[in-house]
């Protein structure tokens, strides 16, 4: 599994995890960035190939180029559950 949220691994228990510091919606990289997409896929496959212990987590050394504050990953319209929670306030 290639995931942005390795903190969930202790409760999820995926067989092997490649953790990636990319924003939600774009786990392999930015639009048009074929080099990063290929490198991330290659790294994830390497974890598949080399992990020997159930639940292994490997933190991949990729950095997202933009500040999180300026990285849009959510939809313009709040998701139904977020809208519901906001309405309850």
């Amino acid at each position, binding site marked *: *599994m*290639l*995931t*942005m*949220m*390795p*903190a*969930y691994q*202790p*409760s*999820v*228990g*995926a*067989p*092997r995890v490649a*953790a*990636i*510091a990319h*924003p*939600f*919606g*774009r*786990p*392999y*990289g*930015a*639009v*048009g960035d*074929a080099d990063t*997409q*290929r490198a*991330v*896929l*290659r790294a*994830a*496959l*390497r974890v*598949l*190939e080399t*992990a*020997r*212990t*159930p*639940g292994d987590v490997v*933190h*991949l*050394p990729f950095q997202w180029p933009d500040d*999180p504050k300026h*990285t*849009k*990953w*959510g*939809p*313009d*319209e709040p*998701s*139904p*559950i977020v*809208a*519901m929670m906001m309405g309850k306030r």
Partner: protein
Amino acid sequence: MSEPFEVDSWRFLPPRLAQLLKARAEATPPPDTIPFTPFTVPLAQARIALLSTAGISCPPDPPFDMDGERANPMWGDPSWRRIPASASEANVAVNHLHIETSYIMRDLNVALPLRRLEELVAAGEVGSVAPSHYSVMGFQPDATVQVSDSAPAIAAAMRAEAVSGAVLAPV
């Protein structure tokens, strides 16, 4: 020597949501066992499939049911879709109410890197691209049906196509 890099799961989240999800993660008990099948096929001979939780569908296959989720915000469509290896952003739909889907509609490879997988095969690093790839929709407050129905069906479809290994990428 630099410190080992560790991914911060909460980095892109607003503080309140991060706090909520962190508490949820910490409150969830660990599974009794972690499933693990050793990967024994050399990657250069392996047939690889990709899975995404982005809610990707290929018309005329039906989209994931977003109206159902709008009507019941505590429900997410638990079904699954098959995506042919030839798929591209030109012929998919992305049905997910929790992410900005326009990135995937501009470049499918950000979430389901089929062209990149083809390139690794062409370079001799991977054996072959599976004929089929898969998507579910990742917002599942209750994952019972995904676990009981969709996951086994996807696994069976992979076995039928002699898939050696797969990469699941939640979005």
